[in-house]
């Protein structure tokens, strides 16, 4: 009994197990709720039905999932390629900031789902409208985080560098950019999950493949187990991409406080 209690405690206090425990509890309650209250499957499917669907239809889910992942990654890469240089320009030039920043903020208040149908009109039914939807959702956090990063370099550091006759490029390379990296990565982490949402928005509006297409079809057919299975795959893609960005962060900025956390707690 004691051993069991100890084990439970260990599970509840381990970082890796905590979310899994919560998910397991929710799933069990969900299953019990659906069966005991007799909720019909056209309203909410039982988790067991969703799992059956995941197992039975894995190949199709994987295939559509890959299509969506490509679109999300495309939008994400575009967010990096456009977002970071744009943010650097904004951080370095008050003129550019004055012109661009308010418009960027304004553009973020436009609901993407409302203008997404136009992307299909402009760019056709291929991958481009999806990538653009993913980009539009994903690039703003990158810009905001990068601007914040560059603007929060301590001025003493910059003064010191200038006093030591560093060129502007050297200041950028050795001080500003490295200093901004943790900020940039926190923006990228938000961006990558939003890119997945954007890709699905694009697929909902007009696409011949991908998870958004699958979700729409499943919804039309009252096939809720398939729809939820699609959502699970979608969530997994989001988590996977998030983890990839986090790994990249660990490689790129191992020195930052957020990455040293494990070390510092280990000392206690």
């Amino acid at each position, binding site marked *: 009994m004691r051993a069991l209690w100890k084990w439970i405690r260990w599970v509840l206090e381990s970082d890796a197990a905590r979310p899994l425990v*919560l998910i397991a509890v929710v799933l069990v309650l969900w299953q019990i709720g659906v069966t005991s209250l007799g*909720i019909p499957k*056209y309203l909410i499917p039982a988790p067991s039905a969703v799992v059956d669907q995941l197992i039975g239809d894995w190949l199709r889910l994987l295939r559509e999932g890959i299509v969506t992942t490509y679109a999300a990654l495309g939008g994400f890469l575009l967010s990096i390629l456009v977002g970071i240089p744009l943010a650097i320009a904004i951080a370095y030039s008050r003129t550019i900031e004055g012109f661009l920043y308010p418009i960027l903020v304004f553009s973020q208040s436009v609901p993407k789902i409302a203008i997404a*149908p136009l992307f*299909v*009109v402009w760019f056709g039914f291929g991958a481009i409208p999806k990538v653009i939807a993913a980009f539009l959702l994903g690039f703003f956090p990158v810009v905001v985080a990068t601007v914040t990063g560059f603007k929060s370099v301590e001025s003493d550091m910059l003064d010191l560098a200038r006093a030591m006759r560093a060129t502007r490029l050297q200041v950028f390379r050795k001080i500003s950019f490295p200093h901004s990296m943790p900020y940039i990565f926190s923006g990228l982490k938000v961006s990558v999950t939003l890119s997945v949402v954007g890709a699905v928005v694009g697929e909902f509006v*007009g696409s011949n493949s991908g998870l958004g297409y699958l979700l*729409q079809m499943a919804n039309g057919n009252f096939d809720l187990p398939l729809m939820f299975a699609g959502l699970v795959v979608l969530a997994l893609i989001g988590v996977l991409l998030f983890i990839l960005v986090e790994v990249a962060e660990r490689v790129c900025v191992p020195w930052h406080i957020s990455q040293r956390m494990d070390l510092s707690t280990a000392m206690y």
Partner: protein
Amino acid sequence: MMNLRCLGILLLSLLVLLTVATPSAQAQQRDKVVLLLNWYNYGEHGPFYLGLARGFYQEEGIDLEIQEGRGSGPTIQVVGAGSAQFGYADVGTAIRAVTRGAPVHFVGVLVQTSPMGLIGFAEKNIREPKDLVGKTIAMTPGGAVDTIFQAFAKATGLKEGDYKVVSGDATTKRNAVIHGQADVTTGHINDQNIFIEDATGKKVQVIRYADYGVNPVNNGILVHKDMLTKRADLIRRFMRASTRAAEGAVQSPEEATDALLKANPKAGKREVLLAGLKATIPLYHTKHTQGQRPFRVAPADMQATLDIMVEYGGVERAQKGKPEDYYTNELLP
């Protein structure tokens, strides 16, 4: 320890949420009634607003609120969950939902000849099914008109490779035709074609499934199954008012359209709405129900719909049942 407590609170609130969110047949206030439509307002909805404007529902002691819908599917789900008493939705879509456990039943079918079909510009010269070979069709994955398209293709000998498909939601389908990304779109010939013609000023050509023997009955009034026994009287009164409203709309589509516009000034252009309603009225009957009052549907037409849904709509043969499992004419005037 603190964390454990947090977890406990979280779980408790989840439980509470679960109980609150559980659909249940709530006790309704007497005769305050919601009719949830199948879609955003378009011409076809005119009769219900006419009934409201002329006080037909009031005369039956019904305080009616009409709400716009977001597709037949969600409307059926809402009525099945007991959150709206009456729904206006596509029969074929509802049959699919019923075989998957939705406790809904039709108490009258207004649009009995299917308005479903293919819509494209006249300049494309697509007049017959065989003209579709090599063309691009815009569809919505899982949509009702798109399911029935399979039946139409079979009936007319079209094979899968004969045409190309692009998929998108309702707006995208319409845009695809307007901007030439598709030659035709699946749709309703009392709605999208009129809109496209009005938006572009170009002549539109339609191919109607019903003209090729594919005629699933379309939109009707549905209720939760429990209402059939518990609130039969309310249904009778509601359908009496609705029948008078439909007859009124047949006589004066203009008045019905004006009533719709008065209730919802943003519903669309008057000409478009009126043309839509005028295109709908001839669809109120099939050859089996000619001369009868509106909403009375023939068993033969329901049987045909059921057969199409089994063949193409993903309804399992074992769960099919009889037409009477889905509708009744008994509460009609």
